């Protein structure tokens, strides 16, 4: 089959590789019909995520048709499914509590060592996202082996086009959980750093959860325009001092909840960011976190910090003092996708949530390397690329 493989920093290629097949009884194989490039794939593209190997197949947002099932899969051939990016067993203590991204058994035993050393505990497996998260082949491919297929994939009713439901795989539930983690109360003002897909879904979700005002922060005009479509007020950090603006807009109180959907590659020319940049390039630290610092400083006293953004290692100069003195609460984590799927599919079917607005480009899987380059270099215009195997025939 054809698949998009990582070969190094800014080097991804579509290679011909072996077809996947059933290995364990709970597996299924799906033929991919749509797969997206995620903002977090750019962290791999930029070489920030350790434990990548040349030839690793990328992609963790995908859906398709079931073409093969293991003896214990509950799926049937021909069903259309969206697959969660988190690989979870459904039977451990954490899955029982719907903390799917903390699944004990999603990672192969040998791959658990790194996370155990680095984080204290191994987490769930992820598709196409380094060997630290399992070394599973991803979904930017013609076919994918899906483990624990009786727990993860959600069946899509006939007649619903791929583009409407594809983002159930990651960014929609991630944006939703980000808003949920902000513990929004009616009348709240919520500030969202980063108007990438997760930030934009967090904006929509925050309003659905009762936020009175949502203030969205980015520097790409097109992305800020999309946030405005959903009723957000917007701030461009290249034009406006964010702290001053937020204080004036909230009468000096600050946002009741802040959402950092930027993460470890925070942009902008700030002193702390430049120092982080130097440290990252000299391996003294791994994560740049300017947006996160700014969010904590702006958040109102006793407010909530929600962090859907991806961080992998350590940050310096994190404002722990401000965090403690102001009595903030932080909620974060990889998304418990499986927990949110039924409710969010229903919301899409009832047209309470729109997802297709996000897609700026559709490309053939064969053009995926160009897609990565465009998504990386032209973030204003390329808000979301969906790859379709065989699109160009």
């Amino acid at each position, binding site marked *: 089959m054809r698949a998009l493989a990582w070969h190094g920093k800014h080097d991804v290629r579509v290679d011909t590789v*072996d*077809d*996947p*097949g*059933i*290995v*364990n*009884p*709970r597996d299924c194989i799906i033929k991919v019909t749509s797969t997206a490039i995620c903002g977090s794939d750019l962290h791999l593209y930029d070489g920030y995520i350790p434990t990548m190997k040349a030839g690793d197949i990328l992609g963790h947002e995908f859906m398709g048709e079931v073409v093969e099932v293991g003896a*214990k899969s509950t799926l049937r051939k021909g069903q259309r499914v969206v697959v969660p990016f988190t*690989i979870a*067993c*459904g*039977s*451990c*203590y954490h899955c*029982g509590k719907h903390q799917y991204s903390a699944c*004990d*058994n*999603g*990672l*192969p*035993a*040998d*791959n*658990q*060592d790194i996370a155990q050393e680095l984080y204290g505990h*191994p987490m769930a*497996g992820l598709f196409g996202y380094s060997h630290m998260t*399992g*070394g*599973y*082949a991803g979904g930017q491919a013609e076919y994918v*082996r899906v*483990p*624990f297929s009786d727990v993860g994939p959600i069946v899509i009713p006939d007649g619903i086009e791929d583009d409407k439901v594809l983002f159930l795989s990651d960014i929609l539930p991630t944006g939703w959980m980000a808003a949920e983690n902000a513990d929004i109360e009616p009348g709240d003002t919520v500030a969202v750093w980063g108007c990438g897909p997760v930030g934009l879904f967090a904006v929509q979700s925050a309003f659905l959860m009762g936020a009175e005002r949502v203030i969205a922060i980015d520097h790409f005009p097109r992305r800020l325009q999309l946030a405005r479509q959903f009723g957000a007020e917007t701030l461009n950090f290249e034009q406006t001092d964010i702290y001053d603006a937020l204080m004036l807009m909230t009468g000096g109180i600050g946002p009741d909840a802040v959402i950092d959907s930027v993460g470890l590659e925070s942009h902008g020319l700030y002193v702390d960011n430049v120092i982080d940049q130097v440290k990252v390039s000299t391996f003294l630290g791994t994560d740049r976190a300017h947006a996160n610092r700014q969010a904590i400083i702006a958040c109102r006293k006793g407010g909530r910090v929600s962090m859907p953004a991806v961080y992998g290692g350590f940050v310096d100069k994190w404002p722990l003092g401000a965090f403690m003195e102001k009595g903030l609460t932080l909620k974060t984590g990889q998304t418990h996708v499986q927990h949110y799927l039924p409710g969010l599919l229903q919301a899409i079917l009832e047209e309470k949530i729109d997802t297709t607005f996000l897609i700026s480009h559709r490309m053939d899987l064969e053009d995926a390397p160009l897609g990565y380059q465009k998504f990386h270099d032209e973030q204003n215009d390329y808000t979301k690329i969906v790859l379709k195997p065989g699109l160009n025939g």
Partner: protein
Amino acid sequence: MTESRDDGPVVAAKKNADAMTRATIPNAVGNSALARAVTINRPVAEIYAYFRDFSNLPSFMENVVRVTVSDDTTSHWEVKAPGGTTVEWTARLTADEPNALIAWMSEEGADVPNSGRVEFREAGARGTIVTATILYDPPAGVVGKLIAKMFQREPAIQARRDLRRFKQLMEAGEIATAAMNRKQFEEMGL
């Protein structure tokens, strides 16, 4: 002066952990100690029964090639060692309390003299806590241990991974693998 009280398991002590752990094992054989605990979300009777049938152990113990059960108390073990070699020993049960404890010691002539115990403890809604404590003499002493570690066959690493696989097998009914297909699975091993 009162003695400083510490509830930490002796195997986690910063000093003399090996010797203090050895003192807790009746019929101790081997001088290096390791211990690992894992909580498995299944009833204790099920966990104990699967483990007690030693012929099951190669299904999750990656380096154990074969366990031949000779009688109620003795079994013969063949285990992969670094450099494509195999080490063997005969193990004799020194304690067997259903749903609670299995303890063993290797007999004279073992390639890797060892002993230890596996405890099973009911943990309410969380299932069963399985704690393995193992004493062993690494082949060729410190150098052998270093070589084994390089080849990832160091007993501490192996015990940690084997317990994870045991948990996966009991909870999920299968052992997680990233292999894309059967061919890759055979190449990767367990």
